[in-house]
């Protein structure tokens, strides 16, 4: 365990404010996860706590691991009026990478019978892997519409249902996006990538509900035991990355200009109220909208495939969450409501009951949160809590977190063996790349249940349901 930490509870630890820190650093994890956390997480969260205008604490979720500037699983809020900053590292390169989850209205036994042909069709229909491109071809003007409109653009162009917009963060369209703040190169790279899954840890998974922890909330989310859901994990593709790459240079120069000490290159930042900070926020909002449009188009493709194989299927969007964002949110600080710029890098917004941002149907139970496990283990559906808002600006973990490097996984497993092993357990995996399948082997990840239990015990979320994989499409 890192020296100098103070135990606040069995699931919360504090690095007290010292030296150049402007606030303490908090770690939400049990003792076991704290012991597993790599040393870089502590160093990076300390650096985040040194940034100007940070409010309350720099925070690490239970799945925190070494990231770029911020740890992955890092959360920090900044007050623009107190010199607060916006940071590329606090958002990450894959802007608004996230998960959307559909209830299908089908039961496990129904889907199991036609699962193989369903997966063949999904594999043919969903563009995935290196160099994949979607069927949508955009002109510069049309792409600007995507960046300004997000999932709303997708719905207006025939991808998905209008009523789904309420079940997406920002109602499908983040305000403040300005396509003129995004480079021509970033846009050019995206012309053929709307409606693509990508590769790496991105996936599309058919899952069945194995266990319900909270009947009431599960009922509100439309979940029932042995019901089938579909989860899609992907982000803003090339555009988000190019925005990150472009602005790391711009904010690097800005940090020097404004005299902000930078302890790690990817922690570069600019005051929120500076021209550079404002431009980054507007570009990042474009990245968010790009990701929301991407997931909306993919959701539409998945619905079409399901309807071909299961005419009785009715795909209903439970919710769409983003992981890599900076959002302007109202939070109470010392009894006063303040507008804060909340960075969540590899962390999920997890608002508790009552927040006006939530769909009316969820306002009594809190926001759905989806925690992806691996191709071979369970995933979780959770809900935000009021305590999570008080502690961590309404934030939660986002996944299991890697326990092993990609290189180590490649040395240990062969993609074909991973897929065969999962097949022997009844899980169908369609992988574009055998290498990718090996890198994403279930054994390469931490125990998602330990991560979820730590978030639950810390009070950040409540558990709603556990889902098991039936089939997975990997990029």
């Amino acid at each position, binding site marked *: 365990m890192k020296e100098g930490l103070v135990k606040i509870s069995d699931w919360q630890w504090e690095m007290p404010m010292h030296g150049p820190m402007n606030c303490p650093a908090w770690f939400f994890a049990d003792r076991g996860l704290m012991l597993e956390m790599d040393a870089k997480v502590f160093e990076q969260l300390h650096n985040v706590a040194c940034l100007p205008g940070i409010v309350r604490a720099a925070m690490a979720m239970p799945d925190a691991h070494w990231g770029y500037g911020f740890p992955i699983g890092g959360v920090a809020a900044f007050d623009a009026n107190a010199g607060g900053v916006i940071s590329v590292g606090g958002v990450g390169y894959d802007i608004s990478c996230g998960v959307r989850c559909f209830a299908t209205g089908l039961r496990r036994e129904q889907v199991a019978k036609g699962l193989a042909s369903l997966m063949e069709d999904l594999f043919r229909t969903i563009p995935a892997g290196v160099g994949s491109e979607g069927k949508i071809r955009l002109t510069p003007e049309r792409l600007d519409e995507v960046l300004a409109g997000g999932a709303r653009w997708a719905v207006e162009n025939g991808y998905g249902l209008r009523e789904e917009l309420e079940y997406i963060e920002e109602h499908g369209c983040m305000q403040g996006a300005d396509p003129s703040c995004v480079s021509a190169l970033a846009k050019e790279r995206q012309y053929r990538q709307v409606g693509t899954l990508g590769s790496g840890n991105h996936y599309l998974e058919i899952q069945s509900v194995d266990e319900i922890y909270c009947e009431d909330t599960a009922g509100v989310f439309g979940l029932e035991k042995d019901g089938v859901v579909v989860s899609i994990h992907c982000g803003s593709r090339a555009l988000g990355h190019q925005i990150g790459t472009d602005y790391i240079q711009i904010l690097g120069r800005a940090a020097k200009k404004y005299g902000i000490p930078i302890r790690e290159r*990817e922690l570069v930042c600019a005051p929120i109220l500076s021209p550079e900070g404002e431009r980054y926020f507007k570009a990042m909002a474009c990245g968010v909208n790009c990701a929301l449009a991407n997931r909306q188009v993919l959701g539409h493709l998945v619905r079409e495939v399901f309807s071909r194989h299961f005419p009785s299927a009715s795909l209903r969007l439970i919710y769409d969450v983003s992981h890599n964002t900076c959002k302007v949110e109202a939070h109470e600080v010392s009894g006063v409501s303040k507008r804060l710029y909340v960075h969540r890098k590899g962390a999920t917004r997890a608002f508790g009951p009552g927040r006006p941002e939530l769909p009316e149907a969820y306002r009594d139970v809190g926001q759905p949160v989806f925690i992806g496990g691996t191709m071979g283990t369970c995933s979780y559906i959770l809900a935000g809590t009021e305590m999570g808002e008080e502690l961590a600006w309404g934030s939660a973990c986002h996944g299991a977190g890697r326990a092993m490097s990609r290189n180590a996984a490649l040395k240990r497993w062969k993609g074909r063996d991973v897929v065969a092993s999962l097949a022997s357990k009844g899980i169908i995996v369609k992988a574009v790349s055998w290498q990718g399948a090996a890198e994403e082997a279930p054994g390469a990840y931490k125990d998602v249940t330990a991560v979820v239990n730590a978030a639950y015990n810390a009070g950040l979320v409540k558990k709603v349901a556990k889902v098991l994989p039936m089939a997975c499409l990997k990029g």
Partner: protein
Amino acid sequence: MKRFELFEHGADIGVRGLGKTLSQAFENAALAMFSIEVPYIKNIVATCFWQFSCESYDQEGLLTAWLNTLISYADLYRAVFCSFDVTIEDCSLTARVGGVPLNDLQGEKGVEVKGATFTELYVGRRDGIWIAQCVVDV
């Protein structure tokens, strides 16, 4: 002397180019990076050629700028790059880059590299060998 190697990182992958000169190390770091997308990269013969340039404020910044330039244009041209002839002057780089269209590749692909990062970034000389390395986001 081996030309490149991949090294461990918790979530992503490190690329390390080695060379007798700084330029060679940059060329081999690029080769390392594309080996993640196409594991048999060393066997590919370039059929198309491009000219790229980039600059930064120091040599380490130049490495990430170089690798990110390659990622961007490989994506844009739907190609994989496999041969590199790099010239570096101060913190500016020009290169003749060869590659093949992605659609012409027959073998199995690896995983997509999304960006070169500043993590584990190092450009320098050890025991007479130039090293250019960083972690790439996949």
